[in-house]
């Protein structure tokens, strides 16, 4: 029941994010059913993305009733593809590409949050995304820890996007601050019962 609510949250948010992404890159983008699952680090690295993968990631901090961080992750080569779809060829202008990438993530995350805050009546504010290029393993473990999550068992919430039938390998993770989801879900279910 509670997992259903979270899946619902991320279907709505992710669907809207996919629409804004397709407008930005001018190609149809679809989103798969969100993954909402508990797993440990080794299952994550074996089943979802290798800890060694070099990725471009953008992190957006979320405050308010849904505290945590959004992590948009895309493989290095795919990030270039995504930015060139958005800007046309950037001729290797790294700074331009990075700022376009941040803007893109900013739009995706804010579209996502607008959609869910309308449906579920939660108030949130977002920080400005910042970019990091590193190994997936180092990024994801550090971000969970910075949200106060020290368990081996992680609650993974992830939307995956694809375009033109190809896997774009772009994923949007939400890393809730320790304890935040329980509070939020309790709030929503109590409201429904009333």
């Amino acid at each position, binding site marked *: 029941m509670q997992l259903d609510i979270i899946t619902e949250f991320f279907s709505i948010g992710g669907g809207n994010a996919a629409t804004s992404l397709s407008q930005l890159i001018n190609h149809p983008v679809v989103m798969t059913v969100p993954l909402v699952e508990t797993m440990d680090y080794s299952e994550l690295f074996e089943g979802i993305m290798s800890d060694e993968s070099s990725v471009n990631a953008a*992190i957006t901090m979320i405050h308010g009733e849904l505290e945590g961080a959004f992590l948009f992750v895309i493989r290095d080569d795919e990030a270039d593809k995504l930015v060139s779809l958005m800007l046309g060829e950037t001729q290797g202008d790294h700074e331009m590409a990075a700022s376009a990438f941040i803007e893109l993530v900013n739009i995706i995350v804010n579209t996502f949050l607008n959609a869910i805050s309308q449906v579920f009546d939660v108030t949130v504010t977002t920080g400005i995304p910042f970019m*990091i290029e590193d190994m997936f*393993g180092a990024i994801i473990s550090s971000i969970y*820890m910075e949200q106060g999550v020290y368990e081996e068992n992680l609650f993974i919430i992830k939307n995956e996007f694809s375009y033109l039938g190809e896997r774009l390998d772009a994923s949007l993770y939400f890393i809730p601050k320790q304890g935040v989801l329980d509070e939020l879900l309790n709030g929503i279910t109590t409201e429904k019962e009333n």
Partner: protein
Amino acid sequence: MEKELKVGISDYKIGEAPQSLFTIGLGSCVGIAIYDPTTRVGGLSHIMLPDSSMFNGEKKIEKFADLAIPHMISELTKKTPKRRLVAKIAGGSSMFKNSLNTPQANIGLRNVAAVETILKEQGIPILANHTGGSMGRSMFFDLHTLQVKVRMGNREIFDL
């Protein structure tokens, strides 16, 4: 005997030449290689947190610097004398350049400090370290050549 042993997050493994040990994606975590250069028996630990006393309930030994390091040492000393053990450490970065204003943001630094204190208490010298900064690291420890290599998030490689 497996040639290459992968050490996951919150884990440690013991091996001996010609084996090698490696761990991937150290962010704020710290990797600790402890070995005897003579017998080439050694271990690699990937700790996540400095201090187990901050937590209640059941604790995974391999997760905490204060539990993992003494346990790994006592396993090693079943095979080799403690006085010959030496250490090399890597990791403990602040991946997000303090952009995340959480109390947990300096956990990398606290991990490194805890590891240094515990190794000192155990009387094990740190021969080399590569810690801090804002980039992830992987650590490769060849027990045959006794080389410890650190590969950074940007693929740059350092020999410790």
